[in-house]
């Protein structure tokens, strides 16, 4: 992650984008090749690794744990809901600038963004919205074990292993794939009478269920405004030329699940609306491709298991 760029290089990138040809030969709307694999870490409930050709490498893990439900004291909302807790961390090894406290701001920004877009509560943490299905798409009610007492908490942790631009998209692609891969053990609730409940977590590895609503999770498309144009999937150098950045979160059915502007520039309202529209269509195509890949992988794994063959993951050998 270089911190500075020379005026000549900036000019080169700017002019190139104006002519719809970028330094690595892509057009403005082209993504780099994305490598996606799920189930890479055995200790987790679900995991995924996303690599964008050119460097960006993100590992996302989901761990399901049992914890107390969080109830809003004022509205009494949340008693029958599970929780999603997100965090993003940039490994110091990923870039020179992530050393020490250097990545704190970035970690916090990405963590907050992920919490906003994926967990069902809206912007305000002190107010849990009563609107049924939030932006995250996941059915939190299904994560509740005993209403008012115990629920599943999904800890979604993203670890940035290498930096090659377009971190936000990679993190969200990874998070979506990791939750897609997540299996939660089934529980059996017993009514002891007197409003007392007890539950048992079933040990059977086959008796697990997927997270409901996983296919409705959004992904993000980051649009970088450079000059009067906008590009997707910016490389580190292009990110340095970016005046303004718009992150558009979109789900499979094309609903917008959140937007956030970044960087220190402005965007005209008409261009902003155009960018949102562009992000929406790009995101939908991307989701379709990702879903196809995830399905393909799940089918291949299942076929191998049925034949009794071991499932080998490429894991960290994937290029």
């Amino acid at each position: 992650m270089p911190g500075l760029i020379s005026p000549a290089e900036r000019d080169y990138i700017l002019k190139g984008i104006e002519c719809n040809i970028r330094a690595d030969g892509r057009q403005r709307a082209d993504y780099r090749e994305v490598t996606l694999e799920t189930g890479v870490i055995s200790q987790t409930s679900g995991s995924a690794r996303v690599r964008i050709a050119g460097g960006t490498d993100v590992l996302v893990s989901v761990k399901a744990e049992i914890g107390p439900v969080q109830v809003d004291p004022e509205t009494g909302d949340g008693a029958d809901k599970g929780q999603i807790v997100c965090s993003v961390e940039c490994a110091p090894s990923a870039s020179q600038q992530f050393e020490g406290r250097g990545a704190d701001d970035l970690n916090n920004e990405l963590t907050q963004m992920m919490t906003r877009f994926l967990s069902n509560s809206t912007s305000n943490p002190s107010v849990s919205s009563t609107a049924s299905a939030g932006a995250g798409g996941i059915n939190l009610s299904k994560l509740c074990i005993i209403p008012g007492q115990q629920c599943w908490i999904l800890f979604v942790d993203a670890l940035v292993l290498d930096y090659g631009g377009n971190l936000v998209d990679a993190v969200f692609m990874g998070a979506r794939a990791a939750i897609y891969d997540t299996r939660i053990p089934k529980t059996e609730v017993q009514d002891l009478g007197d409003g007392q409940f007890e539950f048992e977590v079933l040990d059977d590895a086959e008796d697990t269920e997927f997270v409901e609503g996983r296919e409705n999770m959004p992904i993000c498309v980051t649009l970088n405004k450079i000059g009067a144009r906008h590009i997707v999937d910016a490389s580190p150098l292009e990110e340095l030329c970016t005046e303004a950045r718009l992150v558009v979160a979109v789900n499979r059915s094309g609903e917008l699940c959140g937007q956030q502007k970044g960087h220190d520039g402005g965007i005209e309202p008409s261009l902003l609306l155009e960018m949102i529209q562009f992000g929406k269509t790009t995101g939908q195509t991307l989701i379709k491709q990702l879903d196809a890949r995830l399905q393909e992988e799940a089918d291949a794994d299942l076929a191998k298991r049925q034949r009794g063959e071991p499932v080998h993951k490429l894991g960290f050998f994937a290029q």
Partner: protein
Amino acid sequence: MDRKRVAGPELSVAPLVEYPRDHKRWTPQDEQRHDTKRQPEDMRPIYLKTGLINQANGSAYIELEKTKLACGVYGPRPGKRTGFSGHGVLNCEIKFATFSCAKRRGHMRDPQEKELSQILSQALTPAVRLDLVPKSTIDIFITVLESDGWGSCVAAAITAASVALAHAGIEMLDLVAGCSAAYIPSGPSIASPTPSATDATNATGPSLAPRIFMDADLEEEKYEQGAIVLAYMPSLNEVTHMLQSGKAEGSIVSQSVEHCVEACNKIYAVMHHALVESVGENK
């Protein structure tokens, strides 16, 4: 008297809540807004005044009924960070007072406040001529005294900070006005705990397009399906920040962006007025 024994009464009752007899909690099914005087596109009246903090180079105080916050600007002053930079740095810090929200806030800055600070600096930087103040920082400190709605709080912070910057005499390209809106489902919410009679008559409710309420307050925010905060420079016609959360159709988003831009133009007039007034005082 026996101090070891609890001397309380045997029977205890819950405290009485002071609501008038005809009090009814506001729900999105109500035809009117929580504040019945307002239409969906109306904002709360804004009170904006500069120069309330003596020690600061520039300051502003803003009040949107129960949303109250103060902002002080210090600088440009030499940057604490070592190393040369040709541009000045805009350093924003927002702090919710411990008593400002329904839940008590801690004294330390929490992750949300840190992110908000970042959002504020991103919203204001496009307007400030930072190239004129190399090697310096401009510090903006915002204290939220009372918060009635998260969105309106962020929007008010942006408005107040930009007026305070102007009051401090820092060169800017334009003032930045902030505006918030909430998308509130018009039909009966599925999660609403009491199935009322309206459920039967209004069965298609949830599929209806949500209503856009400008400058929603806390009570309305509880029912929101999504929200947007927009920062806009009216003279330059540029959006400096946009933050949207929650799920919404594309058409609702573009509609709310237009509404917010319109509202920002109105806020601009208020900001303008407050600044002209402050000049009059100095004479």
